[in-house]
């Protein structure tokens, strides 16, 4: 088998100055990392752990933008590190890598994602069935507005990039946040779902959609081009409709 050195040796002439957040010192540590043609931010972090400091902690799984395990702050912005080519984010020959914002840090670049998922459940972002496994799959017209709205919001990989980008979450830790509310919006439009009542209570309650100030960071940073801001606007309208309806009935 013929082995060819990747891209020749020229690629190692350049080094990147990488500042990485470390939890033991509560500050940044600088590493010099050889640059390659094909190199993501995850590769940078991996190189440091494998070649320079074996104690550096980070999290990844799929390597291709499907699992949402590896998001970090890169030069202050939340990103999937596995799908971010170094050349696109390097500033002045360097990079600054930190754990994802708005979540508790476990160690170094690893955050505890439980609060993010707890809010997903608290927003009733869970399908509530109306049929069973013994029923055939129902016919569903793919062109209805509701189905298309549900579909437009569904391809979220729960990476928490939007959650890290959100200033409303930063300001109010009880706010459910863009990902959970986006999922709730998808379910509001899912005609098969039977969980409408409790979900409406959840998304219109204290930590709900009214906390969103439509700043749009979630949509700006979503690596899957979803638009949680628009989903939350939809929830606000649903909430308003239900209030009007309740007011009407009481009146």
């Amino acid at each position, binding site marked *: 088998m013929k082995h*060819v050195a*990747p891209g020749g040796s020229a690629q190692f002439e350049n080094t990147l100055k990488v500042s990485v957040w470390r939890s033991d010192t509560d500050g940044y540590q600088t590493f010099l990392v050889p640059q390659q043609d094909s190199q993501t931010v995850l590769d940078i972090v991996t190189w440091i752990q494998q070649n320079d400091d074996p104690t550096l902690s980070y999290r990844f*799984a*799929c390597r291709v933008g*499907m699992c949402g395990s590896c998001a970090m702050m890169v030069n202050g912005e939340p990103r999937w590190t596995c799908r971010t080519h170094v050349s696109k984010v390097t500033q002045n020959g360097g990079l600054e890598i930190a754990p994802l914002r708005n979540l508790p840090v476990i160690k170094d670049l690893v955050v505890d994602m439980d609060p993010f998922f707890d809010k997903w459940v608290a927003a009733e972002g869970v399908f509530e069935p109306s049929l069973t496994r013994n029923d055939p799959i129902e016919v569903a017209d793919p062109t209805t507005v509701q189905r298309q709205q549900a579909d437009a919001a569904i391809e979220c990989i729960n990476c928490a990039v939007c959650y890290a980008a959100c200033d409303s979450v930063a300001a109010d830790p009880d706010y459910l946040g863009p990902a959970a509310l986006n999922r709730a919006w998808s379910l509001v439009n899912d005609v098969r779902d039977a969980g409408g009542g409790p979900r409406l209570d959840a998304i219109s309650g204290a930590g709900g959609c009214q906390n969103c100030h439509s700043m749009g960071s979630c949509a700006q940073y979503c690596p899957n081009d979803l638009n949680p801001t628009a989903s939350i606007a939809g929830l606000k309208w649903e909430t308003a409709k239900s209030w009007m309806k309740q007011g009407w009935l009481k009146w």
Partner: protein
Amino acid sequence: MQLERHDTDILILGSGGAGLFAALHAQRMAPEGTKVTLAVKGLIGKSGCTRMVQGGYNVALGKGDSVERHFMDTINGGKWLPNQDMAWKLCKLAVERIQELENEVGCFFDRNPDGTVHQKAFAGQTFDRTVHKGDLTGIEIISRLMEQVLKRPVEKLQEHRAIGLIPTRDGSALSGVLFIDMRSGGFRFVRAKAVLMATGGGPTMYKYHTPSGDKTMDGLAMALRAGLPLRDMEMVQFHPTGLLAGEGTRMTGTVLEEGLRGAGGHLLNGAGNRFMFDYADKGERATRDVVSRGIYDEMRKSNASPNGGVYISMAHLGPDFVAEKFNGMVKRCADCGFDLAGGRVEVVPTAHYFMGGVVVDADTRTAMEGLYVAGEDAGGAHGSNRLGGNGVANSTVYGGVAGDVMARDVAQVNGLREPNKDVLDGEIARAMHPLSRKPGPIQNLRTQLQDAMWDEVGVMRTAHGLKRGLDRIALVEDELMETGLASGNLAFNLTWHDWLNMRSLVDISQVITHAAIARKNSRGAHYREDFPDSGAMEDSAYTVAQMGKTGLEVSQLPVEFSIVRPGETLLGDDEPETLVEAAE
């Protein structure tokens, strides 16, 4: 070293399709008050490979299709090696499971214009039966399953790495599982009345591989040490088109989808010429194994691209068309610096799926009381080759089966079983071994192992190469046992886990190689250049590897044709051989 103890009733290892389904079914079916615990090496719903399914879910739903037809495709695809009872249950229960996924779990599958579920074509099948959600089916299935599990009272042990199956003192049953709590670096022993192992195989001991980075054969390595029989261990499926981005990047090996070839993509050698018609009448559209061997052979002839592979080229189909039809793939390549729509991208065959696994029955039971195995950790359903779309069907069907069966079985178990203390201590010592050795570069050893497996135990095999492979693996093993790491801080210490990953990969690499030596014919994913014939289907045998008193023993057992014999079919006389229109 401190050891914390913990008890539960039903313990599930892994949170792919099998683990999550098992949790749902166990929680629903078990007697009230039964405690269900889900332990996973990473985060719930994020580890493992079900998440990464691009293709979809094979199920006989369409008009004119049948469970019988799906079954025959599975048997033919597996070259008559599958356990037929398992293959039958897979195809039969897939129908109920897809309804459960749509109706109860809430999966959102693509529809035809008339509102019925869309089913797409997938290679090697006689009916277009693959249910999907765009080309991100796995994300949809796992995200929905994850929500359902998170909502329920299932105990979570995240970033808990299983390192040992601990039997009772007399060895007659499983007592529990030893873990490393990765976040603290401490050991935790969890007793349970029933344990499902669903950690996913994942042949990541090859230089080029597709599975998730957390998969390192830990489950099969534990089963091997526990003395369980493993079958079909020589059967490693290679996907022909893994991204080749050079060394030093985790992108290399990740899969570029099958549909690129199906749509008319060209494979070009280093000189820029198409070559697949030199190997197969169907050219690039031949099956995965044939194309993988074609590419491998071309690479051996020194017709390789700069990084040592070949090119995939789509531009002749029109860059705009490619960008629209394969949006996800084009975007992924662009993020990583490659132009799939308009340029050429280097590719290489990449180890994708492991057909081998623990010997189980169709109820997921194993030779050890209290231990159940489902998903990629279990052998038998696919035989020598897995059809695209049968992987996620298998994990979800058998995960659910395991949940139901464990729920029934725990009602009959009187209490938790006491562990064999010697085995427990031995497993802890095994994990701590590197902490008392001089620190050294573990990644170099991983590279050496991956090179050895790729060169000698890969796409094409010979007796001579396989023996050389054993020698090379042994050298890596010796060096690994002398390589250590600083023991100062074990909390979230990835380097310790890199070492443990290597330990599992070395063990299973040896088993793969021994099984490949034993199989002196070429079936499905296993190709012997010195024995290119498939052998008579009526004489089909499967390999079983097991740790004996004197070391690894590999035997061959005849396939039991319990439902259909070679030359027979379950399809009626009036049914056509295929209902798929021939590709143009």
